[in-house]
């Protein structure tokens, strides 16, 4: 029944999906945290930059950003992000960059709502002890904020996992790309779709369950 799978690297394609997800999740977590720091910080210019970044990126479709990374950055400006590599490697890197830049805006907003859940008294107490802004943020606010936003961040991560399919638009051979290929070559529409749907459920469902459990475990009881 599943012999149409022969000759296709199904696991390989899903492995690329996983790699895209993990790399861009790490990138977006770092950049998103920095953005959140800028948005709540004391320097007006950085606050403005953070706000502008989030509002601009959130309102442009991810597809536009990814296609721009390929057509604009690579083909027009010859940005390759590191030397060497063939077409596919370069597009993989560009897809990671685009996904991380896009997702960071959502990570930043999730974190900012997490910062709002920390009682004002905590920050006031920290200031009363004489801690500077970076110390308040690093030692008191962010550790609690991160624990409060595990669930929203899990949703962002699940959305990111699904969003990696957009990389198919620039020829990164991940799950959606392979699926399109297979549908064109094989006459097994229903089965092929079922296999890929199942694959994504296998990726997103455990993420949600696991992080849901983690969020309950680490939640700050107030």
């Amino acid at each position, binding site marked *: 029944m599943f012999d149409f799978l022969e000759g296709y690297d199904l696991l390989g394609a899903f492995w690329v999906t996983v790699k895209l997800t993990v790399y861009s999740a790490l990138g977006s977590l770092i950049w998103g945290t920095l953005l959140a720091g800028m948005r709540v910080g004391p*320097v007006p*210019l950085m606050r403005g930059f953070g706000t502008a970044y989030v509002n601009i990126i959130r*309102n442009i*479709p991810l597809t536009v950003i990814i296609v721009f990374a390929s057509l604009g950055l690579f083909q027009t*400006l010859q940005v390759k992000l590191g030397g060497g590599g063939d077409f596919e490697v370069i597009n993989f890197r560009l897809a990671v960059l685009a996904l991380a830049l896009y997702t960071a805006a959502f990570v930043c907003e999730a974190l900012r709502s997490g910062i709002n859940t920390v009682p*004002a008294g905590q920050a*006031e107490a920290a*200031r009363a002890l004489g801690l500077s802004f970076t110390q308040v943020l690093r030692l008191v606010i962010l550790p609690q904020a991160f624990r409060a936003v595990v669930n929203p961040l899990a949703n962002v991560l699940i959305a990111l996992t699904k969003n990696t399919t957009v990389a198919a638009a620039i020829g990164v051979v991940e799950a*959606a790309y392979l699926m399109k290929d297979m*549908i064109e070559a094989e006459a097994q529409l229903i089965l092929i779709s079922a296999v890929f749907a199942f694959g994504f459920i296998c990726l997103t469902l455990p993420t949600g369950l696991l992080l849901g459990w983690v969020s309950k475990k680490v939640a700050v009881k107030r």
Partner: protein
Amino acid sequence: MTTSVLFDAQGPRAKQRNILYTVVFVAALAAAAWWVFSSLAEKHQLDWVKWEPFFTSPQPWETYIWPGLQNTLKAAFFALLIALPLGALFGIGRLSDHRWMRMPSGVVVEFFRAIPVLILMITANAAYAEFTNLATEDRLLYAVVTGLVLYNASVLAEIVRAGILSLPRGQTDAAKAIGMRKGQTMRYVLLPQSVTAMLPAIVSQIVVIVKDTALGGAVLTFPELLASVRPMSANYGANTIACFTIIALIYMALNFALTSFASWLEGRLRRGKKSTGAVVGAAPDGGLEIVEAPPVKTGGTDKV
């Protein structure tokens, strides 16, 4: 000067330090801008010839951008029109007292939320090609709308559910007390009240729908706004950057208007006296919806 609990009112030394940070940040931004500017200039992307068609003649707008934008809006409009009632149906279905209704609704909603829209679009496109004899241009629109509907109906179902659950239990109790049946309670008491709480989330879901139409252009060759870049840049001499700038600005203007409207609505509903003050938070991406209780009223909120 905004006051924040995270840092003190600034004294002379802190002010100096801030100035230093500002200068360093400006320098970094300027360096980045210079790099972008010089690499654009090097590839002749800043030449006036490449930008001029958008400003001096209506031709690119009439031939490429406007038809593309029309298709984008058309797909988004139909998707919303179909997904909204479908979502309401499944959202209410998940709250049903009957297991046989609750279970399948839950399974359908969770299933379509777990799958990428692109996968749904590709499947729909192939299915229409195989089982129907639609003309290609209709088929692409149908496929894009089908993908958007399946995904967004399930997200909207969750918004509807969260909206109804955000109402105080007393509403249902009171309706029961005056002898309303379950259907009547839903129709006359719960739904009308929760619609206000849901509105901001629904408006921000429209942004997600508009953004996802671009998938149809990039992968299925549906001739929407993003898909107009390739022919346009081919026609006006490889002005890729200019084309992307223009369409990104259009998307931004459209979606920014929607997001601003959503947050204005949210603020208005929170402050309103007629509603409970509970609002289903805007779903920014991938169905991130939170029921927020009415904000605790404290003197001079100084949250960041």
